[in-house]
């Protein structure tokens, strides 16, 4: 019994952990981090350790002595902005499950939690804005230069070459291709103008838009709470905008 106690205690000694957070980690959404585990002990391997970081758990079956390993780690955290992870606890039943030994490791990792993207219907928003007589600035204006953004009804004024024949045949009505504006005109994303009720929802919607346009390679501009505008070139800067959304403060 005494021996198992000693082995169990020794098992949790000499562990060094470092968390490599995923590049994008959204509020309350799982992301794949990497955990670097180093067993600094000279002779004794580490066996059967359960690891817990803020409720995110991983199981480490074996780390040889004087060796470092990398394991994937599913990380899901709630909140937005800078988060400091300090709560890392190790738990092990090793060697024979007579005792469950717990240990907290000194651990400090800073993460940036991005607002969780919330999809919404931009077309509806445009119509609502038009009804109110506003210009929907957070939405890309249609043009014939950029990439195809959506499919709309044929009003009779669009050039014939914009007719989406395939969609028209399927829908039994004439449909036209609607294009995003060209590279010269960045899309303005203003979280304050998002349709969501509260700030977090609006930031989520803005994040969704950033991702949507970012993936399409459109240039974007983000209007911060301070009124400052942050631009992102086509195909880059998406993460910078998301980071700013994460640190966005409406006050």
């Amino acid at each position, binding site marked *: 019994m*005494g*021996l*198992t106690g000693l*082995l169990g205690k020794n098992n949790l000694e000499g562990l*060094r952990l*470092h968390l490599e957070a995923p590049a994008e980690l959204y509020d309350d959404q799982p992301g794949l981090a990497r955990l670097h585990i180093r067993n600094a002990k*000279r*002779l*004794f*391997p580490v*066996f*059967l350790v*359960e690891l817990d970081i803020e409720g995110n758990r991983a*199981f480490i*079956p*074996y780390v*040889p002595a004087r060796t470092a390993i990398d394991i994937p780690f599913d990380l899901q955290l709630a909140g937005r902005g800078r988060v400091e992870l300090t709560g890392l606890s190790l738990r*092990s*039943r*090793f*060697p*024979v*499950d007579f005792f469950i030994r717990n240990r907290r490791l000194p651990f400090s990792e800073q993460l940036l939690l991005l607002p969780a993207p919330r999809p919404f219907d931009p077309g509806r928003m445009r119509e609502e804005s038009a009804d109110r007589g506003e210009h929907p600035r957070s939405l890309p204006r249609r043009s014939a230069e950029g990439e195809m953004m959506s499919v709309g009804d044929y009003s009779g004024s669009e050039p014939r070459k914009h007719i989406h024949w395939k969609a028209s045949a399927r829908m039994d009505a004439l449909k036209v291709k609607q294009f995003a504006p060209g590279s010269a005109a960045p899309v303005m994303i203003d979280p304050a103008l998002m349709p969501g009720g509260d700030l977090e929802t609006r930031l989520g919607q803005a994040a969704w838009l950033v991702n949507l346009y970012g993936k399409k390679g459109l240039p974007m501009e983000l209007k911060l709470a301070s009124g400052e505008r942050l631009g992102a070139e086509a195909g880059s800067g998406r993460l910078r905008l998301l980071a700013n959304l994460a640190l966005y403060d409406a006050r």
Partner: protein
Amino acid sequence: MMRVERLLRVCAWLVALPGLASLYPHLDLLPKALIPLLLVLAFHLDRKGEVPRRTGALLAGLTVLLFAFYLVRIPSQSLSIPVVNMAALVLAVRLVGEKTPRQLIQLIALSLFALAGSTLISIDMDFFLYLLMLLVLVPASLLLRCAETSCPGLSLSRLQLRRLLRYGLVLPAGSMVLMFFFFAILPRTSRPLWDFLNPEAQATVGFSETVEPGRSESLVTRGRLAFRVESPSLPQDQLYWRGNVLNEPQGGRWVRSAGHRPAPSRVAGGRIVEQTFYPEDRRGRVLFGLDLPQEMRQVRSDAQGDATFTRNRGQSLSRLYYGVRSRMGAQLMPTRGIDRDFYLRLPEEISPRIRALAARLDTPGGPRADLESLGDFFRKGGYRYSMESLPTGEDALARFLFETRAGHCEFFAGSFATLARLLRIPARLVGGYLGGEYNDLGGYYLVTEDMAHVWVEIHLEDEGWVRLDPSRFAVNSGAELLGSRGGNLSLWQRLWDGLDYAWGRAIIRFDLSSQVELLRFTSSGLKRLRGHLDPESLLYPALGGAAIATGAFLFWNLRFGPGPARRLERRYRRLLQKRLGDAARDPSLGLFDLARQSGIAEAMDFARLYADAIYRDRPLSRKQRRKLAALLRRIRRPREGGAAVGKSP
């Protein structure tokens, strides 16, 4: 990859089998028959992968029934027999059921209980083997169980599994050390505590306290161990282990008279032989010794005038060994006259043929001449030593002497003593053992029950009691009598018996008095050591010890130490930590970080050179090591106006 869950099933079997095997030879017929069937069923269900619910319920019912059956039998039997039967059956039934981590714990507990139960019946070498098996298997199973509980459904690679199990061996190794330590120091009684669970065993051994030549079945159980004797190697034909003296014929039997008190006598002459006896049968009261025993030690005994020793009533033989001092080839001289009438008393009915023979052998030359003619009669009579086709019944001796002319020692000794008494020579029988297998590996004689023997002592006025073995008159005595009584063990048999003997000595017989002896030995050893402690005598051992320690340290450092590169890195970190204080103690800080923080150009050079070699997975060359060491020296004693690098924010 191997699933731990599957391995746990194998473990369940491996753990249960030693427990079952330890009990199986001692079980009643019913469990003996049932257990193999249960094992076959368990194997079948394991292969199928599931245990039907009905089977589980049926087995639970069966267990209850068997439990009740053995519970009822407890009052009529000793407690241990029903207990071991129940333990074995419950273990076998448990093996049929599911083998989840929880049930594995039950199986382990039951198997250990079964093994412990087997000690109620016997603690022999098998027990130790099963104990060793469980000592290894139980921690291995618990480790795997721990893995499965920590992460259900876990699979391990072969390497991980090997490492886990290899590490698991630390547990039994450590336990074994602790086990022996506690075995030596835990308080123990001078009497086995569990003896009350077993009834007094029947004294069914080869050595019998009566001699009845006409009853062939009174012979010994072949090959069963009677005792072991630590003693120097002795001539084989002198190995007469004296037990008791049978001095009174009663019908066809020879017994020891309860009413007669033998005259006191002294043992004179001969060669002193010290022995230590380890009897196997602890219940008999007769204490044995090499003929002639003079003194018994470490046991309270009652010494009789005819050199027989009996254990005092109330004196437990749980001690299980005693010392004997004998004089080999000595004379047993009565210190006063013997009761001649008593030693000439004849059986009530003697065959007329025997009386006629005695009359024929009687010579006018006195006892010596009579003995000569008696010896001649046996020598020339063509008698054969035999264990088969023995005459039985009341007239057995006469039929042996005149018809079959074949018999074992009881026939020879019984007829010789009767004829001697008819010739008016005081005679008596001595029961004991003849021969022994000498185990030179352990330095002891192994004496088995089939070596039980009876010989004769006759009394001559000027010589006292003289040993005479009539069985030696047999024409085939060389082969049949002496040939089977020694020198027949192969090396392996001697080795195995040596182990068994060591087991008995070190484990079974380790009692309170052994602990006291161990304590005395240790304390006297320490005192001796203290007495010899003078600086000169200590010099060489101290130098030797220091050399060994240094060698061990160097070996350890070479084998497990950090290596030259790592040592340089450590020195670098230590130096910079000294300069930068606590802020530099963060192990996550890299070499370059430290160099930048310190602002020392040599530190940056060191980091570059080191990183260039190490991070490209190249071992440091001798030249690089020298250069790094020189840089470290410069970091320690920076030159005035040394270059500096920009500090990081």
